[in-house]
């Protein structure tokens, strides 16, 4: 199995994740990956409404958010979380990856998008990228390959 360097916060503590998906399997799979990346599971939710409540309760560093869920879909949950917490870092995780969906999620405040089935190496690079925007993150790259920053 591929080894990944730990993604840590600036205070050297593990990155805390909220995993939101109505599928138990999808959550287990994501949790396994964030543990491979040295992260810590702060909470889980199976729908958008619970995700909002959990976000307010645990204030995670990163949210991994499915799109199609019962009660409240992921994109609406993103909008509500970002309205209250402008600095929220949310990565959408969905099997439905068409442009309209991705754009809608990004417009509502999501930071990135990854399509299911999730490849660990892809999620890892996306998390590195998202954490690199976080001044409190250590070990995050200055830029991803092919990307320049001033």
């Amino acid at each position: 199995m591929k080894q990944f360097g730990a993604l840590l916060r600036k205070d050297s503590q593990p990155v805390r994740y909220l995993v939101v998906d109505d599928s138990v399997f999808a959550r287990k799979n994501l949790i396994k990956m964030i543990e491979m990346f040295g992260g810590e599971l702060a909470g889980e939710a199976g729908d958008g409404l619970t995700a909002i409540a959990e976000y307010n309760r645990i204030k995670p560093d990163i949210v991994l958010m499915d799109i199609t869920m019962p009660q409240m879909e992921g994109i609406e949950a993103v909008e509500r979380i970002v309205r209250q917490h402008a600095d929220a870092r949310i990565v959408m995780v969905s099997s439905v990856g068409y442009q309209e969906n991705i754009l809608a999620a990004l417009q509502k405040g999501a930071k990135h998008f990854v399509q299911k089935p999730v490849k660990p190496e892809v999620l890892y690079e996306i998390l590195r990228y998202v954490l690199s925007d976080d001044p409190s993150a250590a070990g995050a790259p200055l830029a991803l390959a092919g990307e320049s920053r001033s």
Partner: protein
Amino acid sequence: MRMELIQPFINAADAVFAESLKGPTKIVDVEMAEDAYRRKGVAALILIKGDIEGRVILDLAPEVAVNVASVLAGTAMEASEQVVRETVCELANMVIGNSVTLLNDQGFHFKVFPPEVHMNEAGLAGSADTEALVICIETPCGDIFLNIAMRYLHRRRAERSAVPALD
């Protein structure tokens, strides 16, 4: 039979099974079916309505579903009706999500209905009216069947706007 509408589902299924079940996959059987679909095991029926219409049935034996569940969860799963249901839905959602992505980016717009799981002895009533392609895909967890029937309802929007109306 519109292969250009069916191919994205086959490609997506092959890719999703190979990636999520962590092993090689192979299409071992392809056949046309005109009668009502006879399930091999537990089936998820997904309806699609819009520019293109039809349905996809993902079908696998309960023991295969438990094998899949164990791989997806990364730990051995006990066989139960709930595990089988969730597994079939999860696989169906991933296959359909990836197929829909390909079709949507080609300009087709349509609604995908949540999967209906069929486990009891009753047949799949919604599958009796359409010529379908039945594909058996061999995976590391066992055989998974796809039954796909798709047709155009309207012309693609881009073509409609590019071609003068005939009527």
